[in-house]
């Protein structure tokens, strides 16, 4: 490549400047170390990708080609980092901590709700479970509750398994 900003030499210089920014001097790096590493490794791949390539032709395909190369490099650099045990542990820890925080918040809200005499989520859940248990109760119990049902003609196989023929009963929503 002769002209334009995309010479390998230019990218190498930009890459060197970023490295100096990140690791040299006393200035704080603009990103956290993982993101900086990702950026640097992406740039390194991008530079290698540009080296030896024929100059892109005129037209909008040029930008797209460069963009696609950048994305390919970013994904391959990210894949290396994302597969590392430290990254996997950080992903899981982020989710676990979010759920711990949610559990603490929920416990706080439940205590407040009790003080104001409002139904708590735990109480609503308990009611739901009772309803589900009643719905799943064995046939004789249901028959005692609604004697008329027992006189209906016996349903076929599918109904015996707890299903309903669509059209006669809609699925619970």
């Amino acid at each position, binding site marked *: 490549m002769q002209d*334009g900003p995309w010479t390998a030499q230019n990218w190498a210089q930009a890459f060197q400047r970023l490295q100096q920014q990140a690791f040299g001097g006393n200035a704080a790096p603009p990103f956290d170390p993982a993101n900086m590493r990702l950026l640097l490794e992406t740039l390194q791949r991008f530079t290698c990708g540009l080296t030896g390539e024929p100059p892109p032709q005129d037209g909008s395909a040029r930008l797209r080609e460069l963009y696609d190369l950048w994305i390919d490099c970013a994904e391959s650099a990210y894949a290396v980092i994302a597969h590392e045990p430290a990254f996997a542990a950080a992903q*899981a820890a982020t989710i676990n901590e979010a*759920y711990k925080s949610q559990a603490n918040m929920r416990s706080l809200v439940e205590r407040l709700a009790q003080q104001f005499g409002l139904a708590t989520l735990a109480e609503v859940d308990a009611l739901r479970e009772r309803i*589900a248990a009643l719905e799943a109760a064995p046939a004789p119990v249901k028959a005692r509750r609604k004697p008329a049902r027992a006189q209906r003609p016996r349903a076929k196989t599918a109904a015996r398994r707890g299903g309903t023929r669509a059209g006669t009963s809609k699925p619970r929503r």
Partner: protein
Amino acid sequence: MTATAFDSPGWQREWLELASRGAVLAQTLATLAPEPAGAARDAVWAHGKSTLYRYRACTESSSRRPLLVVFAMVNRPDVLDLQPDRSLIRGLLGKGIDVYLIDWGRADRADRKLGLDHYLGQCMDGAVAHMLAANPGVRAVDVLGVCQGGTLALCYTALHARHVANLVTMITPVDFKTPDNLLSKWAQGLDVDLIASAGNVPGELLNALFVALKPFRLTQQKYFHLLAKPHDRAQLETFMRLERWIFDSPEQPAEVFRQFVRDLYQQNQLMRGEFVIGGQRVDLRRIRQPVLNVFASRDHLVPPSASRPLGQLIASRDYTALEIDTGHIGIYVSRAAQTLSARVAAWLAEREAARKPSRAKRKRG
């Protein structure tokens, strides 16, 4: 790199062209209203929030044996019938197959304690019972399981072997701990009991994880590529339908999440023959039916390494592995994948044809 290099007339033209494409794209997107374009179907049975649909035939039936399609619970099954020219379901209907689909519905908090024993033992088994009752003379159905639905189909077949004649699995994880499975690596450290104790797992969380597997492609590049054909309404409509499907993720019932992540992703119990559903051990060696295992070579969610081992785990003597050069979503909607339905139909037809002479021989005997 100097800023002046961008000032050359060639680059200025290029940026301007990109900007004008962006304006056209915004205009086209604003006027798009893609309607759902699924094939006609009827709800024929329901249990809990699950519904069994039967698709209306569009051609004369070529087989007496119906096919039950089982999709994942983490997404809606709409992608199997996205639109007329991108539809696995229509492809199968076009080959004369009587297609049923079990839709798991949208779980809510009341379903958080429902585990796989409910979904397989009651919903899927009830659906199969209905299909058998509706097709007198048929003793077993064909099953096509997709993604997580493929794992469910495998478990169902192992537990209810006599109800399944032929099994097709598509992009189905079996070995959940292969070295290239990024999702599995991230899942190892999850505190599953803590997460499940909070209730159902939101679809948004799962989607965020899926997107984080390929963040640059899935949050930037696919949108940038829309600039290539900003006038193409048909292509943009397909894209919008797919986007709508991707981000329409139902909640995962807490108990199903616990079983899937702890037992399968963390402990790899299906591979080790230790997975238990409703008190019954899932032994894949009980699968003696013909099995067609389809997987995608560029799948980032279910890498081929997660699907390939199936052949060694089952007792079937008729096992076919079919690798397609596409990705996880491409297997539903890419143009190349549109031939898949024909291949599945042909594979089923061959098994049906092989069965007929042996049946006739038995009768004569």
